[in-house]
Every structure is written in C-alpha cells, then in structure tokens.
C-alpha cells in the first residue's frame, strides 16, 4: 500500500485528507507540524507528502527544504496545499521543493487523482 504523510496543524483538515486519501487507497500518517513531519519521515518511508504552509514550530516551506536535503525525503513527491492563491505563493512552494501546489479547499477528486498519480498507484 502506498504511504502518504499528511502534515497540517488543523485537525479537521487532516481528518479530511485522511478520509479522501484512504478512500484513494493510501495508508495515511499524520503530523501536526513540519517538525513532527520530519521525525515521522526518519522513522518511516513515504511515497507522497501532503503539506500545509502555515504551521506552528516549523512551517511547510521549512519542512520541504529540510526534507529535500534528507536522504529519506529528497525524492519523495510533495503536494503543497494552502489557502493562498497568488502566483508568488506557488513559486515559493516550488522554490522550497514542492512538486504541485493546490489551493484550499481542494476538491476530494482533485486531491485523490493528483495523489494517486504522484504516488504512482494510479492504474
């Protein structure tokens, strides 16, 4: 089973991603901030990262930057999801190492399809 790490400080949002991604065939692991995300990534391996931007302790950008420099996470596709929709927001996400930038709220189908393709589990 493909494994996805969801990093978001909002409990409801994590629950939503979990629902959608489990439905899409993923095993979901959660982290409440970038820091916890990195810890999880050291312990376990993942096929996909779904990352929020604004989080306490360590934000999504910092998480991705650190991740891209770590053997465990450097090549893991990352989907960044945030509320901001200006062009510079996606550019900033890409600079930090994201592979795709989506704007909240993401429709279930959009998330499921993008996640399946990026994790390589779409048939």
């Amino acid at each position, binding site marked *: 089973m493909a494994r996805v790490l969801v990093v978001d400080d909002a409990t409801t949002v994590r629950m939503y991603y979990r629902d959608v991604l489990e439905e899409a065939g993923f095993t979901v692991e959660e982290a409440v901030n970038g820091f916890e995300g990195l810890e999880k990534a050291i312990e376990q391996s993942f096929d996909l990262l779904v990352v929020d931007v604004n989080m306490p302790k360590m934000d999504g*950008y910092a998480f991705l930057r650190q991740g891209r420099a770590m053997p465990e996470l450097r090549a893991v596709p990352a989907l960044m999801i945030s509320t901001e929709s200006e062009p510079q927001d996606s550019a900033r996400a890409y600079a930090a190492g994201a592979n795709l930038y989506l704007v909240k709220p993401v429709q279930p189908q959009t998330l499921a399809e993008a996640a399946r*393709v990026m994790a390589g589990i779409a048939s």
Partner: protein
Amino acid sequence: MKNALLAQFIPEARELLEIAGSGMLQLEKSNDADALNDIFRAVHTLKGTSGLFDVAPLTTLVHAAEDLLVEVRAGALTLEPEIVDGLLDSLDLVGHWIDALESREQLPPDADGMMKGRVAALRRWLDGSTPKGAAVTEPQPAPAWIAGWPEEDLRAAYRAAADGPLTAWSYEPDEACFFRGDDPAHLVSGAPGLVRLRVVLRQPFAPLETFDPFLCLLRFEVISAAATEVVADHLRYVADQASVAAIRSEDLIGLAGPQDASEIFGDFAAQARRHLAADDRNGLAAAAEALLRIVGPDSRQACALRWIAFLAPSAAPDPLLRLIGEIGGDCPAGTAVNQEGSEIAPAAPLRHVAEQILAAQAAVLGVAADDGVAEGRIAAVRTVIDRCLPHVAPARASRLSQTLASRGGDDAAETRRLREALAADAEPVALTAQDRAPSVPATAPSEARLPAGAPDGGSVDAGSTEIKAPEPKPTEESRGPVRMLRVEQGKVDALMNFVAELTVAKNGLAYLAERVEQVSGSRQLGREIKEQYAVIDRIAQGLQVGVMAIRMMPVSQVFQRFPRLVRDITRKLGKDVTLVIQGEDTEADKNVLESLADPLIHMVRNSLDHGIETPEARRAAGKPAQGTLRLSARQENDNVIIEVADDGGGIDPQAVREKALRSGLITAEQAAQMSPEELVNLVFAAGFSTREQVSDLSGRGVGMDVVRSAVRKAGGDVWLSSRVGAGTCVTVQLPLTMAVTRIVTIAVRGQQFGVVMDSVVETVKVRPSQIHRIKQRETFILRDAVIPLVRLADSLGLPVAGDAVPEEEAVMVVRVGRERVGIVVDGFRERMEVIVRPLDGLLAGLSGFSGTALLGDGRVLLVLNLPDLI
C-alpha cells in the same frame, strides 16, 4: 463523511477562536509578537479549514479578519481598541455561527447579511477612506422570520420605510442575560429607527408555580428604518445574540396561505397587467379590491391582492408584476428557483491530471530552488515525471523516459534537459484547465493558476523575511503534542454514574459479610468476603479518582471569559480596572465549574458596577486611579475556593443595617447583636434587594440572593467581607466534585438520616446543665464559643419521644456557611460514600432534605439539607 468532519471542525474552531480571542486581549495589554503570531495562525487555520464546508460567509469574514491582522503584523496598522472591538465582535459572530453549525449543520439564514456588515466594518480600517463599504448597503436575502409576521405589520413597516434604508434584525438574549445586568427590552426600545417589532417566546413559559422570572425566554424580531451599521452598532454588546440584515422594502411583501386555483384569478391577472401597462394605478387598486370582496380572505391569492391594493398607488411596476404573476399562476421568469446543483462531472481521464502535474514540474524547474534544495528537488521531479508516464500519450512517455535515462551534467544541465523535454510536446493543459476551472472544479487542480513561464533562474522573493530558518524550541517537548481524545461529556458522565453505583454496590459487600457472620456463624467466610471487599474497594476508589480526573477542568475554563467581560464593562462604565487572575490552574469538576459560571459573572459585574469607583472618585479618595479586580481560585481540602475581590468603595454595614431594618428583614434587637461582618452578609438574604432600587446603596445587592441560591444548589456557599473605602471580597466555596458524597448517618427518634460529612465539624456530648437559653434559643458553650442548638426532631416535626431527658445529649456541630450550629440527635451511626440523588416524584416538595441515597442494603436514606433546618 461531511458530518463527522463537521463534528471535528466545531471543537477545533472553538479552540481557534479562543486562542485568537485571548491573544487579542493579550496583545492589547502589551505588544507581543508571539501573541500576534498565535492569533494570526489561529485565524488563518480557521479560514483554511472552514473552506471544507459550505460556510462561505464564515470563511469570508475570517478572511477579512486575517487581512486586517496581516496589516497589523506588517506594522502598517496599529491595533486601536476600536479595531480590537471590531475583531472581537467578528470572532463572537463566528462563534455564534459555530453554535448554529453544531445544532443545525448550517449557518443561520441571515449569516450572509451579518457577514457583509462585519466585513465592511473591518475593511474600513484596512483601507482607510476607500469606500469599499458600498457593499454593505447592498441588500441581503431577508431573514426567514419575516414570513411569520402578520401582513398588517409588514405593510406598516413598508409604509414607514419610505425610501430609506431598512434593517431586519432579531435579538435572542441568552437565558442568563439578566444576571449580567442586561435589560433586552430596554435595549430594543432604544434601537434606532424602530418601525415594528414582535416579541416571540422561544419556548413556552413554565407553569406559574415553577415560573422563573429571571430566565429570559424572549426573542425580539424588529424592523428598523435605519442603516444596518447603525443598528449593528447599537447591538454591539450583544452581537453574539443578535443578527442584523439589510433588506429592501420588497422583502416585506410576503405571501402566505393555501393556493387557490380558481379561474377567476387568471382573468384578474390579464386585466391587472393591462391596468399596469396603461399605468392606471387606481384602476389596478380598484380591481384588486373588487376581487377581494368576492374571494375568501385566506388564500395566497387573496394575500397578494391585498398587497396589490396597498402597493398600487405608489410602488414600482416590478413588485406589482410579480404579485400579479403569483395570482395568475404564470410566474414571470426570475422567480423560479434555480435548482441546478453541482453535478459531479464524469471522472476526467488521469491523462489530463498527469499532464497538469507534468506542467507543474516544468513550472517547478522554472523557479530557482532555495538553498540546499536544488538537488533533492530534481530527484523528486524525476520521481514525479516517472510516475506520470503511464498516463500520458505513448510517444510523449517514451521521449520523457529517454530524457530521464540520459543522465549527466550538473543540476543546471539536467534542469534544462528536463524542462525542454517537458515542453516538447506538452498538451496545453494550463489554459484548458483554466477554462474548465469554473465548470469542473472537481478535476482542475488549482495549479493552473501558475504563470506559464516563470522567469529563468529568477530568484523569487529571495529577500522575503518570512522564510525563516526553522526554530524548533528544544525546551518544549519535541516528541509531538500529548495525545488527546475528545470525548462526548455524556459518555464520561455515564461512566461516572457507573463508578458511583459501584461505590455504593461495594458497600453492600460489607453488609453481606456481617450477615454471613450473623446468619451462618461462619467467621471465616465473613472475613474472606471482607478481604474481597477491601480489594474491590481499592479498585473502585482508583476508578473513581480516574474518572473524576477526566471530568476535572481547570478554572481557567471559567475565568477565560473575564478579561473580555471586564474590558467591555469597564469601557462602557468609563472606569479603569486591571483584572488580576490567580490560580487558574486549580481544577474542579466540570459540572461544578459550570454551576459557578453565571454567579461569577454576576459578582464581577457587581464589583465593576458598584464596587470600584470611577477614576476621579478614586483619585479624590487618595487611591490609584486604576482599580484592581482580583479573581482567584485555590483548592482547600475537598473544596475549591473562588474569590472575587475589588479595591473599591466597600459596603457600609450601617447602610445595610438601616436598609435591612427598614425592609423588616431583621429586628432592631437582632441588628444590635450583629457584627459589621454579619451585617454586610445580609446582602445575600432573599428579599434584601427586592425592596428598593439597589443602586441607591453604595454596595451591591442586585440578586446576590440569586447568587447564593445558585451556589448552594451546587452544594457550596458564598460569603463576603468588606471594609468601607478599602474594598470587598466575595468568597465562593464549592465542592470539588458533585458525584460521590461522603455522609454520616444519624439516628433521630428511631429514624436514620444522612448528613454530608464535609459540613460536620465535630461531635460532642453535652450535659443538659450545659445548655443555656439565650433569647428563646438553646445554646451551649464549646471552647469559649457560643453555639446555637437545633433539635433535629423538632425541626423535622417528628413525634415527641416519651422517654426522659437523657443524661447527655449527642450533638453534632456542623458548619453552615461560616456559622457553627449544634444539632441535637439521638446518636451517630456510620460513615459511607453515597450518590445523593435529587428529590423527585412524591418527595420533590419536601423541604429540609437535599436528596436521597440508596444504601448498600437496599434502604433509601434521606439526606438532610442543613440550611433549611436552621
């Protein structure tokens, strides 16, 4: 799925609102960057999460608040008290909506209108003079309650509105609002532009015997000929209980009643249209009135006719045409409800998705990577491209596959190679996606908004200050937060009940052991049962402590609302008060704390209203201009002690004395014996404040008897100490928990009763010769203190015993409030833990008892309510 998600969202949203609200107060006190960040993140998270639900007004309002905070954080805007007011009011409104979401799973119907008003208010600070406020006056869908109004009222409102602004608002004061000193009717009465109002009962009044006049059950529905902002401003202190919406006069034209399909209406419609086309308004009105004389008055059509007759002379043609359409049945276009829902588009082939993701990879490579990211990012892009290959056109897949295979060169070279390959025969997804976005949101990743060609190697926002190195705080537990469970309170309560039952049931084992010894004479078996009992007892106690710990909450849960309350009230009263909160970590049972909430608000209000003086008066009295209100909590044995202390003017015992005398509460004789402290405590006496307007007295009194009865109902007590000129301190004592009560049983005239252990000070034997009569009351001396005696048998009206006066009286000294009283009983029996259940059924009216308890052997014990007996 949505519902579970919503159930998750509601507590999270409340938590975020709480963080933002308390952060705001913190920020107002001191300019604290951390507090600002906390608020910002809370609001931001709330905005993001709310987007998952169909709550657009909520999201928009929170967004506006966030925009304002962005300016504050950037230093472009100073946080004036008015702005804090605006933000807090908005958060209150959001809190109110969250309540609505919880109970009805949707926002109130007037949410959109409310939101517009708030957003406009917030925007005013944001862009100074820019008249973005135009959006406010844009009318909203009218609130649903208008439809419930009688036609005449609606027409009267219509007439009064003329062409000015109209606002429909409703105000549902919460039940306990009187305790906060609110007078909703007065507030409504003073509202601007009052045109028509209705007062509705939210629920039927209780029967007169149990009717509580201090529980506010009204709801006000009002139409004002005033601008929404003016009304909203008038209601700002009760914003969470009111909803305000701008409406158009047409919104008042409501039709009610059953449809009447008579042909006669069709004829009328044709005729009416002709009148209108010829602008023959009098003819139209006459035709409507003529038809009204023929048809019954109850139908929807008749209702429309009355409106036509009313509107014909003055109204614009549009509403008239609509009404005519309603009568004739042929609705003109526009009234039909657009029911086209959000159909789910057929799943797009993943090829499209894959192409979008590939386009994103091209965009990724077009943006310069942050330091240290480049190498890893290329690896990730390669992974992603590779995973997209199965979904794209075969030719494109093989070309990309070759590019992935041909490695070599540095990162820059590889980036270039990949970008070229991606661009080579890319499908024009970005554009298509953008075009499709509005109609097929479900399949278009929002990535499409990325500009097609980001500048080569151009550094993006390199100087931005927001990209900071991570700052993990090593001092905090870095292993992630403590895992928490959110549990419905009902479940814990049920568990608590079982624990309490177990505690009682286990007492049965002790009886059983005794009976075994008596009946079978087997001491061995009896002892074994006792040993078993000891084991179960230990487990039950552990269980009880555990479950009680779950229900324990820090008093901060109750205290947290006070910074805001104190701030609002002092601003309103023009006083300057610092609130000092102490011991907020003290824990107590949730139910106990909840019972404390309203009395506490009341006491704090009293302190601010009557206790603490205005800055001028304080200065004149040689005190600092700023008053201090101290709210503190601490645990003492099995009680939690809450104190509300102010350094205000204090209560004059002589003023209280005179008032109590005048109102006949005490006799001159009693008054002569009372200490100043006893005198000031008379403010708690029922009936003290009802005789006269309390504000006459430089103290307090409004409903302090209500406070006392609420606290006593929860098994606690309240008293007060005061020094004239120096301040007043109200002390509330409450049991830590209400679930299991330790009692001692006493015997009187052959009957057993329970007395709560907490109130028992000691038990003594008193000889009849030691009992003295002072003023028709028996007393005895206990270590230099005179203790009044109460004969329980007399108080309970039990039959007189025939036997002679015993050599010694068994006296139980109990504490009632702060007084000690001796209770004469026949004897003491045992101590035990029981659950005291309130009296119900036949016993409900019984005075003198606080409840019943089931004993281990199945008997029912009445538990005495001592204050009733003394």
